[in-house]
Every structure is written in structure tokens, then in C-alpha cells.
């Protein structure tokens, strides 16, 4: 199901599972909407608003997870980035992002780039109840999508943490979220060429998570590892300073995912939303189980950070196909994602790629897995098309991120000074401590 739904000229493709929820699309244009139609419209919209605030709370989840998995001396910096990102996401999406992502490609358009103009504008003939065939208003549409946009930048934030220069990161985020994310997003959800090709990505394993993950990978490679991470060729773990904060983050992300996936049904359709709730939760549970099992075997000890990553891996993995796989398949997808993420964290570290929070493993690797899984298990989906989509996003995002990061690096630098890194970005960048009064061994 694509997400193109603007301009009133496109039909909302009804959920594939379960019965068609509403048969009143035709009458909706009638003069006075009936109470029943209004009720149906209102419940659809209410659910989408609930989904919106659930996706919003994922930003707190990311903020908590990222700060929990990094050192106390960089906590203010991470919280600052996450607070900024949600503001950046909303403001750029309002400025241009929404209209870049849903340009309303004309019939016959190649579906690569379109722009419906700056700022919000529901249009002169805007009618809430026909806007998205009675599923939600223009405003809901904007805000739900805007909450998604900021997510991509947040993923980068965790991977480049503890060494990236604040101003450089913020600038990158503005451009990536404001321009790159919506343009590549339009290829599928905006009804562009990948959508026309039959590429499938229900809620964004690729469009959100991999898009963020690719940029994270590029950022990490251009920045290099944190000082003290690889000494004489040996990888030294740099422990997160608060696992309760990390756990709070993961639970909040799972909570938010009910809106992320459940809201991607784009209506309150009972059968579809509830089914997506089940596949999403079962994949998360299986991701936990998979990661615990494999990490217990490999590392001999049950590793909490792996269990938490396993949960996220399951969630990212199910995101592309949450509505087209069976419950049993969702468990399998989650289980595999949980195993993959453990392997990825270990291998990526072996490859001297320093990703403090495992963002690349979780969002990029499992995002790819999830997109493939939708092709493998989803009825009528093609693995080949999925691969094309994955590659298209990969190539574009890597190039885009490399160019943006490259220019920023050349012009203003990407990384804080070694001194600042040692002392912590909180004091270096912000002149402020996260835990004033607490005695903390900052040598670590």
C-alpha cells in the first residue's frame, strides 16, 4: 500500500487484510455528510492522531536510548541534539518536506522529483472528509508524516554520538531531513517510480530506518571512531552510563511503534490495525528472544544491551511487512532480526566501525532484512523488486550523505577537538554537566 493520498485525486487503497471498512467513499462528496459517515471519519482521524502522538514519543525513546548507551560526559549533548531534531523535523517538514514527499506526481510523471510548493496549503477545494477518502484530515496527514521525518535524523544522531560537532550535525540534519528524506520518500510513499514498480515498504523499514541508517554509516566512516575505542588494534568497549535510561528508551520506542506501524494503516480499520499490532509486538518479542539466545550462547553471559537491541531489531524488521505477513512469519522475522543484530553489532565492531549505540546494526541492517522479508513472505511481493528498492535507497542516501557531510567537513569541520572529546562534549560544547554533583569517573 502506498501512502499517496494528497490532492484529493488519489484513492486510498483499502487495507489488504480483513473486510473493507467503509463503503461510503462515493457518498462522501455529497452535500451533508451523514452522522454515520462523520462518525467513521472521526474515528479514523482520531486513531491517526493517537498514532501521531505515539510516533512523537519515539523521540523521547531515542533520546533516552542514545544517552543511556553513551558516557555521562556527553549526555547533555545528546539530549540537546534530540530536542533540536524534533524541532528541525517539524519545521523543515512544514517549510518544504511535506510538499517534497507528497508532490502529487501527475499521471505519466517519472516519479523522481516533484514539489508542491513551500508551506502548508490544503488547497481551495479542501474538504476534510474527501481529502483522504475519509481517513483523516490534511492536518493529521501533515503531522503524522512530520513525526516520521525527524526519526531519520535521530538515527544518525546515535551513531555519530560522542564526537560530532554540534553545529555540523544540526546543519546536516536540517538538509537531510528537509530535503533528502522527503525526496527519496516520494519515490514510494509519494507514489513515485518505486511505488509504480511494486516496491513494498509498509511503514518504513527502508524509507525511514535504512534512510537514517545509511547516513549513519556514512557519518561514522567520515568521523572515525571515538578516541580510545580501538587501541593497538584491539576494540575497547566504551560502556553506556545508564542502562535504566537505555531500557526506558527501548520500551518507549516499542510503545511508539504501535503508532508507527499501526498508524501506517492510514485508517482505524479494525482488522488491519489490530493485525499490525500483533505482528509488530510478536516480532519485537521474538527479537528479544533471538538476541538473548544468541548472545547468551556467544558471549556466555546474557547481555542486556543485546536484548534491548534485539527488541528494536525485531521492530525494524517487521516494519516493512507488518500488514502482509502472517503472525507466525512475524515471529520468524523478529527472531532472525534478533540474531542478525547481535552478529551485526559484533562484526561492525570487528570492522572498526564505531557505532556507540548500534544504530547501523539496528536500523540499517535490520531495515534491509525487514524489506527483504516483506518480499519473501508477503503475498504477491517480489524479492527482486525489494532488492531494487533497497539498492536505490542505498546508493542515493550514501551519495547524498557523503556529499553533505563532505561539504560540511571541508567548510566547518565535523569533529570536535581531541581535547573536547576527552573532556566530554557537555563541557566542551555546552559548558554544562548532565549530572551535577554526582561523582563520576570521567576517565572512562
Amino acid at each position: 500500500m502506498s501512502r499517496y493520498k494528497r490532492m484529493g485525486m488519489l484513492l486510498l487503497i483499502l487495507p489488504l487484510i480483513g473486510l473493507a471498512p467503509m463503503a461510503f467513499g462515493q457518498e462522501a462528496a455529497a452535500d451533508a455528510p451523514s452522522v454515520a459517515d462523520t462518525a467513521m471519519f472521526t474515528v479514523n482521524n482520531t486513531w491517526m492522531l493517537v498514532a501521531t502522538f505515539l510516533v512523537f514519543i519515539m523521540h523521547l525513546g531515542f533520546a533516552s536510548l542514545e544517552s543511556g548507551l553513551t558516557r555521562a560526559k556527553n549526555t547533555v549533548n545528546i539530549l540537546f541534539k534530540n530536542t533540536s531534531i524534533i524541532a528541525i523535523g517539524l519545521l523543515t517538514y512544514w517549510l518544504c518536506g511535506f510538499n517534497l514527499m507528497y508532490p502529487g506526481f501527475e499521471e505519466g510523471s517519472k516519479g523522481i522529483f516533484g514539489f508542491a510548493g513551500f508551506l502548508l496549503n490544503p488547497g481551495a477545494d479542501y474538504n476534510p472528509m474527501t481529502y483522504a477518502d475519509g481517513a483523516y484530515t490534511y492536518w493529521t496527514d501533515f503531522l503524522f508524516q512530520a513525526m516520521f521525518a525527524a526519526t531519520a535524523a535521530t538515527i544518525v544522531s546515535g551513531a555519530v554520538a560522542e564526537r560530532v560537532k554540534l553545529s555540523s550535525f544540526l546543519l546536516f540534519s536540517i538538509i537531510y531531513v528537509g530535503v533528502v528524506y522527503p525526496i527519496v520518500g516520494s519515490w514510494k510513499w509519494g507514489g513515485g517510480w518505486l511505488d509504480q514498480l511494486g516496491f513494498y515498504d509498509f511503514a518504513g523499514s527502508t524509507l525511514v530506518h535504512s534512510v537514517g541508517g545509511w547516513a549513519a554509516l556514512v557519518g561514522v566512516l567520515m568521523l572515525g571512531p571515538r578516541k580510545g575505542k580501538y587501541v593497538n588494534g584491539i576494540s575497547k568497549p566504551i560502556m553506556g552510563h545508564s542502562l535504566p535510561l537505555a531500557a526506558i528508551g527501548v520500551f518507549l520506542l516499542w510503545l511508539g511503534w504501535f503508532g508507527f506501524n499501526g498508524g501506517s494503516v492510514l485508517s482505524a480499520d479494525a482488522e488491519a490495525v489490530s493485525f499490525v499490532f500483533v505482528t509488530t509486538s510478536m516480532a519485537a518479542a521474538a527479537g528479544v528472544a533471538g538476541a538473548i539466545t544468541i548472545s547468551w550462547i556467544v558471549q556466555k553471559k546474557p547481555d542486556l544491551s543485546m536484548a534491548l537491541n534485539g527488541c528494536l531489531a525485531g521492530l525494524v524488521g517487521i516494519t516493512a511487512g507488518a500488514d502482509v505477513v502472517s503472525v507466525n512469519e512475524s515471529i520468524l522475522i523478529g527472531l532472525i532480526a534478533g540474531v542478525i543484530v547481535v552478529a551485526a553489532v559484533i562484526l561492525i565492531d570487528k570492522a572498526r566501525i564505531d557505532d556507540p549505540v548500534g544504530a547501523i546494526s539496528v536500523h540499517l541492517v535490520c531495515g534491509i532484512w525487514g524489506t527483504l522479508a516483506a518480499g519473501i513472505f508477503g503475498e504477491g511481493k517480489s524479492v527482486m523488486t525489494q532488492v531494487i528498492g533497497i539498492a536505490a535507497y542505498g546508493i542515493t542516501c550514501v551519495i547524498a550523505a557523503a556529499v553533505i557531510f563532505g561539504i560540511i567537513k571541508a567548510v566547518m569541520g565535523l569533529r570536535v577537538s581531541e581535547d573536547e572529546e576527552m573532556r566530554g562534549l557537555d563541557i566542551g560544547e555546552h559548558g554544562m554537566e548532565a549530572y551535577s554533583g554526582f561523582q563520576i569517573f570521567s576517565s572512562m
Partner: protein
Amino acid sequence: MKLIIAYIQPEKLNAVKQALYEKEILKLSITNALGCGQQGGYHESYRGVDVEVNLLKKVRLEIAVNEDYVQPTIDAIVHSARSGKIGDGKIFILALEECIRIRTGEKGKDAIG
């Protein structure tokens, strides 16, 4: 007067306090410390990477005593802090030249207790 510094296992703190108390050594100061010694440390693992932790948590006691209390203090600590396992800790004894009670300005032996 001597200044006795002792590093002990954190879990022995209550026992040591109790033992000192019984010998009427009621004043002491405590800080947290990390110790590196014969005790090998242990292995943690974090996100798939093995960590050798060789800085172990210890508690550091500082006790100023008059000469006649030195031996009882040592005995009390050794007795109560010993488990027989590596890592039990050390006691260091320094000469203490002067001691002043801030509240009263008292000096020397009287100020210690």
C-alpha cells in the same frame, strides 16, 4: 599518633565497622576507591566486546589513632576484613604529626578521639 589507611572489600565494611566499634575505635572516615592488585579482576562483556575490568571496587578507610590504639585497630581490621581470598586488601600506617579538632581547636592526642 598514626594515620591508618586501609583498603578493604566493600562488602566487609559493616563487619569492620562493627569490629572497630567493639574496640572502641569510633571515629573513621571512608571513601570509595578502585583498586588494582593481585586480584585479577573479572570479565565483563558489553555489546559483544569483552572487557577486562582490573579496577575493582574497594573501600578506603582513614583512621587517626593514638599509639596505643594502633595495634587494636590493625587487629580489628585484619580480623574482620579477612576472607582469605586474594583482594582482601592492605593496611598502611603513616606517622601523624598533628591533629586538630575544628570545633574546639583542641590539638594532639585529645583531638583524635
